[in-house]
């Protein structure tokens, strides 16, 4: 197994990124029904100016608004999916996922700077098969975390996923254990681990690496929870509160630290990194500094 920097700059790769918004001039807000100018929406970080509805973002867009000055180098760009179980129709779905998202797989990992802190960043993209976690997503997350441990860097992950990828069967279930084990290595090394739940973060991803960060933030109104609606329905869960499995529900029940608007997210992440590492620390600040680390 090898890993390293085999990436290109965010700008170059972002050219290929597929816009998460529908084509055309206008978009109707699913939150309030308001007709929104796409150009306005774009300027507004894809938040509805009227009701504050947060649109889902493509991974590259997210990276662009999170890192300092396009400072990002991608890891494992060419790691791609095979069909280990020979699952019916899976190959076609992968091809479709690539076309619709413009990505190789459902997560982009790499290293960039956030508020001057060199940071390992992972961003999931719901556009690729619902952001589901199969072997490639698991492997990329784990390689990113191992890179962080080796280079003593903080980790920031933006999650967006329907859960483990059914088409890889038991192998994708094992990615939950695999990523959770890598989280243990992060904590052991005393490195900051920040998770941001974006819409939606559910099931196998929510029940593994996503839920064991040191700091957990969530975008407003995101669906965040264990069982997807269809699974819960099958299990006979009928009566559910109105805000069930929303970010605000998770906040109310003590499962996230803050619900943070997209506009303030970068600032909050920077403040958190400053708390852990000191202001605008270089990449080596943490070396031999386990006592001051963020052990849980």
């Amino acid at each position: 197994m090898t890993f390293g920097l085999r990436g290109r700059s965010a700008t170059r790769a972002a050219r290929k990124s597929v816009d998460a918004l529908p084509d055309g001039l206008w978009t109707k807000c699913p939150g309030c029904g308001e007709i929104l100018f796409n150009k306005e929406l774009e300027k507004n970080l894809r938040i509805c100016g009227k009701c504050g509805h947060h649109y889902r973002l493509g991974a590259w867009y997210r990276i662009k608004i999170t890192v300092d000055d396009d400072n990002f180098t991608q890891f494992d760009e060419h790691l791609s999916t095979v069909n280990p179980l020979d699952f019916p129709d899976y190959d076609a779905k992968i091809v479709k996922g690539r076309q619709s998202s413009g990505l190789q797989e459902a997560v982009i990992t790499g290293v960039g700077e956030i508020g001057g802190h060199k940071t390992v960043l992972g961003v999931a993209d719901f556009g690729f098969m619902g952001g589901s976690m199969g072997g490639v997503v698991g492997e990329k997350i784990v390689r990113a975390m191992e890179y962080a441990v080796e280079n003593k860097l903080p980790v920031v992950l933006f999650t967006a996923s329907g859960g483990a990828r059914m088409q890889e069967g038991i192998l994708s279930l094992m990615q939950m254990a695999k990523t959770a084990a890598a989280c243990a290595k992060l904590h052991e090394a005393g490195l900051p681990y920040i998770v941001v739940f974006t819409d939606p973060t559910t099931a196998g991803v929510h029940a593994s690496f996503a839920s064991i960060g040191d700091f957990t933030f969530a975008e407003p109104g995101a669906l965040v929870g264990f069982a997807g609606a269809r699974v819960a329905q099958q299990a006979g869960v009928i009566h559910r509160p109105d805000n069930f499995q929303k970010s605000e529900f998770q906040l109310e029940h003590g499962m996230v630290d803050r619900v943070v608007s997209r506009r303030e997210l970068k600032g909050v992440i920077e403040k958190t990194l400053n708390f852990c590492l000191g202001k605008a620390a270089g990449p080596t600040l943490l070396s031999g500094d386990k006592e001051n680390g963020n052990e849980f």
Partner: protein
Amino acid sequence: MSSDQWNVLDFEKPIAQLDDQIAEIKRLTQERGEERAEDIAALEADRDRLLAEVFQNLKPWDRTLLARHPKRPYTLDYARLMFDDYTELHGDRLFADDHAMVGGIATLDGREVMFVGQQKGRDLKDRQYRNFGSAKPEGYRKALRLMKLAAKFKRPVICFVDTPAADCSVGSEERGISEAIARNMMEMSALPTPIVAVVLGEGGSGGAIGIAVADRVMMMENSVYSVIPPEGCAAILWRDPTRAKDAAEALKITSQEALQLGVVDEIIPEPLGGAHRSAEMAAKNVKSAIIKSLDELGKLSKTKLLDQRYKKFRDIGAWQEAPAPVVQDTDEG
């Protein structure tokens, strides 16, 4: 074996009929003092031939039904049959005691061990009491509490997996079922004591892996281990829960398939016809497999043990490194 119709699977019916005939003849010989040993032996031979035939051709869906068999031995049955002695311990010290997750201290062939596992119920009332084997956050937190105690006193942990899924009620969501499962996996990956997990019946998704990050993972011959129940998979992929049989094939959920995929280390043989035909024999096989594993693991240093455990899960999964540098997004999959 009674042919109580609710407790017999379709493909077991011809076997159950022979079982009934044998029982009937045995009863008559006792009542009337007739000597019909030859008849009994012939019928038993017939039955065993039939059993072997039926069980040679089991499909993944049949295994699923066997794994969920209402007469299948459950965690506490194994505890009773395997351990010299065991004492159940309760509660997560945070919220409640979860009856779907049991655990406690036990003696296995003279050695002190900790065990945890999901527990299903036998009759309707008992099933409700055990929440059908679906543990809540407090269950996973109880299990972790017990595992940490085991590590503190340098005792190995035995995990019995038998759950359709973790509980997904509103209450479980409120108390962080995801967090509880995630934390268990993380803590187990670094728990400084040997851990052995056995999938006894249903290895249901996150609910199963939440107590199955172990140095040795074993499956009973007729158990299943899956990311989603076949019915759920069929409902989501094909909008048709009745295609569960197809989903069971596609998901590769049997012990043989899990072994081939490198997800489990060993298959524990069951008596012919399934564990429910002789819980004693099933427990004997589980016991000897666990003892063998613990003997091997006991020889490893703490560092070696944890390194191996990390690597074991680290290496699971399939991907390809497409030849770099690729400029265009072509479909090289």
